[in-house]
Each structure stands twice: as C-alpha cells, then as structure tokens.
C-alpha cells in the first residue's frame, strides 16, 4: 500500500461522513428554489453549526468508549447562563463568554470525574448529571427570556465579506485551535487508546485518566460553545427539556453518520461535524420538498432509520460470523 492509502484507511469514517453530507446537501440545493445563495448557505451553516458543536462534544466522549447523555443539557444550561451574562460592554461580554465556556467545561469535568474517579458507567452517570444540569438551567431561566450582546451575536451568525458564513469560520477555528491540538497531544492519544483497548493502554503505561478526563472536559467546552452559539442565534435563553433531549439524541446520530465508532477508539470530531450537517440537511430537505409539517417528524425518523441501516450494511458482508460480536 502506498502512503495515501494508509491515510485513506485512517480517515475512512470521516470521509464517509463528508460524502453523506455532500450528497444530501447537493440534493437539497438542487431542489431549493433559490439555489446556493449566500443567504441559504448562511442559514444552513448557522443551524448546522449548532448541532456540530454538540456532536463534536459527543464524539470526544464516544471516542473514549463512553457516551454523554447530558450533552444536550449542558448545551441548554450554557444557553440559559449566556442569556444572563454575555451582555454589556465589550469587556463584560468577554468575561461573560469566558464564564459560559468555563461553565461548560466544569459540567464536562464533573462528568469526567464521576466516570473516571467515581467509576460509574457513563450512560447512567450522564443521565443523572443531565437532570442536575437541566435543573440548574431551569433555576436560571424559569421562563424563556434574557438577552445577549447583539453586536457580537450578529457578527458571529452573519457573513464575512458578504459571502462566507461567519459561523463556519468560527467552527473551523475551533477545530484548528482546540480539536487538532487535542488529537495530537499525549492526552488525546490516551483518550483514543482508552476507547480502543483500555487494558492494553494500561499495560503500556499510558496516562489513561488524564486522557479521558481531558476528553470529557473538552466535550463540556464544545457543548458550552454550542450553548453560547444558540444564544447568539436566538438572542434568548430557554430551559426547554425537549430541546435538550433532542440535541442529545441527534448528536449521537450525527456521530454515527460521521463515522465515529460507538465502541470507541475510531473516528474524529471532524467526522462528527459532517455528520451533524448531514443530519441537519435531512430536516431542511423536507422543507424544500414542501412536505406537510405533520409528516416531517415521521420522515425525519425514517431517514434516520435508513441512514443507520445503510451504515450497518457492511456487517452483512462479514464472512466470519464471530466478527459480529466484538
């Protein structure tokens, strides 16, 4: 095999996620009455970026062979917090942004502490912390409301040079400044190793706990960024239980579409971004095809069902049945 084939093999999941997204987006644009205008791209990007942040958070935890069912609630909590503190003078706003991101990290770190040092199963631990985070969100915003620094909000959700959606640039910056350094760090490698084979990683003397803790904390940071972005997008904070649950569920779907293995060790947050955009596009497609709103939830479900089934089709080609069970 030549070098690029090894690269292809490493990036397979991410590339499949990209292909799924491009295919769906092409169909969407082809059928959109306006075609690919800067406006359409901006709207699609803003909605996609919201889920992309949450999906990246989910991907980090899934890579360690965990799952974070509280990720949507961190998203909601940081949204409610941002609607209080990201206001006022540039200095106050900056402090507010830092505060919101720190709150997200703290939530992620608590999850990490419970899973790593408390030795709880991620699925149940995050169900419980999710309830707590939602409760706090409800304390902050019993009723929808609040405000946000609108200049900043408009800048982040607007367009650069009139064409490029600013949210995409922001997302790319986060990938470059947070995700890539994490992946190339020892802690990041330990997080992958923990997901791939924890006993082997332990035997090799890897800093497993540090790696997993970093993954959970950075996941909290990403979810916090998502919550912040939601505030910029909606100008308000709202403790909506259904919305939090929905983001959690769709983040898992996005991670799968983006080629991250739910068994851990394989995939990347970049794949999760593509998965998130693909998942978002399904909703938009129903819109351009002018589907009766009553049918939309059903069709979304069916699309999701088909997408994950196609993802599993590879398993049918397995020639040794023992490979079914890993």
């Amino acid at each position, binding site marked *: 095999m030549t070098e690029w084939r090894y690269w292809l093999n490493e990036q397979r999941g991410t590339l499949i996620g990209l292909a799924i997204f491009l295919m769906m987006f092409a169909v969407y644009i082809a059928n959109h009455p306006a075609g690919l205008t800067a406006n359409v791209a901006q709207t699609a990007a803003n909605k996609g970026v919201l889920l992309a942040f949450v999906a990246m958070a989910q991907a980090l935890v899934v890579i360690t062979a965990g799952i974070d069912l509280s990720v949507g609630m961190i998203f909601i909590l940081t949204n409610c917090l941002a609607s209080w503190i990201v206001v006022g003078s540039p200095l106050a706003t900056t402090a507010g942004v830092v505060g919101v991101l720190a709150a997200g990290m703290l939530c992620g770190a608590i999850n990490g502490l419970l899973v790593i040092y408390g030795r709880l199963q991620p699925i149940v631990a995050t169900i419980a912390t999710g309830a707590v985070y939602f409760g706090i969100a409800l304390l902050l915003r019993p009723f929808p409301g609040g405000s946000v620094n609108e200049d900043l909000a408009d800048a982040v959700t607007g367009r650069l040079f009139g064409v490029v959606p600013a949210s995409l640039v922001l997302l790319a910056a986060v990938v470059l400044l947070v995700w890539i350094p994490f992946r190339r760090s020892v802690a990041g490698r330990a997080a992958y190793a923990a997901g791939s084979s924890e006993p082997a990683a332990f035997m090799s003397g890897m800093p497993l706990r540090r790696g997993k803790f970093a993954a959970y904390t950075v996941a909290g940071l990403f979810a916090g960024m998502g919550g912040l972005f939601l505030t910029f997008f909606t100008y308000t904070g709202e403790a909506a239980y259904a919305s939090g*649950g929905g983001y959690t569920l769709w983040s898992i779907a996005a991670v799968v579409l983006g080629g991250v293995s739910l068994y851990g060790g394989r995939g990347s947050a970049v794949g999760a971004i593509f998965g998130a955009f693909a998942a978002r596009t399904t909703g938009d497609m129903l819109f351009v095809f002018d589907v009766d709103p009553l049918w939309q939830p059903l069709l979304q479900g069916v699309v999701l069902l088909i997408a994950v089934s196609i993802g599993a089709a590879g398993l049918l080609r397995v020639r040794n049945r023992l490979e079914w069970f890993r």
Partner: protein
Amino acid sequence: MSETSEGPVAMRTRLPQAFRRVDRAVLTAFGCILLLLFIGSLYSSNFLSLDYLLQQLKVASFLGVVAAGMMLVILLGHIDLSVPWVMTTGAMMACAAAGFGTLGPALAIPFGVVCGALFGLVNGLAVAYLRIPSMIITLATNVVAQGLMVLYTGGFSPSDSAPAAVRWLATGHVVPGVPNAILVWALISVAMVVLLSRTSYGRSIYGIGNSERAAYLSGVDTRRVVMIAFILSGALSAFGGVLLAGYASKAAQAMGDAYLLPSIAAVVLGGTSILGGRGSYLGTVAGVILITLLQSILSVMQMPEAGRQIVYGVVIIAMLLLYGRTPASR
C-alpha cells in the same frame, strides 16, 4: 494460580436464582427505600399509612412494567431508548381500537400491546440481524413512533379517552383495596423471575450479556434471543402505556417522556450492570419503588421542578457511588 480446594463438589442449597443473586446492591436499594419512608414520615404522618403506600405502589406499577422490559434488554448489554413513544403508541392505539365496533373494546388492550411489540420487532431485527447498535436504532424508532403518532393525532392532543376495560385494569379492584395495576405488576414480576431464573431463555440472556461470542459458539441462537427480548421490551412498554392511559383516563402526546430515564435508572439502581450479564429482577423491583418514592417525596415537599430535577440527579449519583461502581482496574 494454585488450586484452592479439592474434593467433592460442594452441594449448595439450591435457592432460586433470584434469591441466590441477592447482593449488596439489592440490599442497599431496599435500605434506601426504608430511609426514604422515614424521611417522608418526618414531613407527613400519612407517609406510613396503608393508603399512601398502596397509592405509591400503584404509581410504581406503570414504571415497574416498563422497567421489566428494559431490564431484559439491559441484561443483554443493550438499551431501549424507544420507550417514550412506544408507550404513547400503545396507549393511543388501545384507545383508538376501542372505538371500532363491538369487538373494539375487547381488543383494545391486546391491540395496543401488539403495536408496541411490532416496534420491538423492528428494534430486535435491526439489533440482532443487522447488528445496528441498539442505542442508535431504538433512538430512530422512537422518532418514527413519534412521527406516526403526530400524524395520527394531527398534531393535537387526541380526544381519545381510555375505554372502560383499560381504566378497570389500571384502577379497578379485583382484590378489595388493592388496585389492579399492582396485581398486574405482580403477575409480570412472577413471570419475569421464572423467565430469568428457570428457563433456558433466561440463562441465554445472561450468557449473551456476558459474552455473546461464547453463547453463539455454544450453539445458542443468540440473534433470536436478542430479537425476542426487544419484542418483549416493546410489548411491555406499550402495556405500561396502556395502564398509564387507564390511570389518567386518556392517552396524551409525550405521556411516555417521563418514563425513559426512570426506567433505566430503576434497573441500574437495582444492581443490574448496564454492560449486561449481571443483575436480579428483585433489584429492579426495588429500584422502581425507590424512584417512585423519591419522586413522591419531592412533590410532597412542594419542591419546584428545577429543584426536583437537581435532587433527583444528585440522589441517583450518590446511590450509584454507593454501590454502582465498577471494580477498580487493579
């Protein structure tokens, strides 16, 4: 390591598995139930009255039925996230069937349960034969069920009221003083204990939960076992929904939303490993009662929703830290 003992095989008293497996987790869960009752009694003397306890058991029975199905799936090392809307589907379909002709009311309950079983079948086929992770496929079928119900009701809460038979099943009395829902839960519980401890199907579930590879190579049709467990889980979820509709006298959208997390929590607080293969049904019963009491106490204390969520989460974490921890790695 060297042999620790030799000689004839020790004859153990052959207690049913459900009791042999009573472990620290189950005892702790029951201990916590007593503690909650004690705390509750400080707030209100009604807390220890028979009426109140029966009322709690009745409320617990809906969760209990759902958690029974959830436990089967969790024992296999899977999870069923389609509970909320499968419950709603069961309830709505039962109410809908009651409106059809003279046979309708009689078939209402079976029809609702069959609808749930059908969703379970889809889940089971996908998990067992297509090897799609259960977390993903049940999430997708939940959305599909939701879509179907939204379509069916036209986006509004249906006016369907629960038929008499359904209401009787949930709130009537065969035994004076004991709501039928409790009896239904008790019957399902007996069936679960027998299934898990006395049948080869039950053994297969534990076997698959521990090592599906080994179970498959032992000649067990593991795919069928997994599929049936999901069908049972779907049917029991729908049945729980039917009972709930009888209790509330009507089926409503999102009526199942409040049952997903508690059903998982009840199974896990009862000592069943979320990774599968280990756990006793008795523990699940304890977990169900525990969660129901906790919710009841929080509402008796008139805590606002936000506080309830926080206390609920913190209590679950505290209890898990108490006994739900995986063994240390070295």
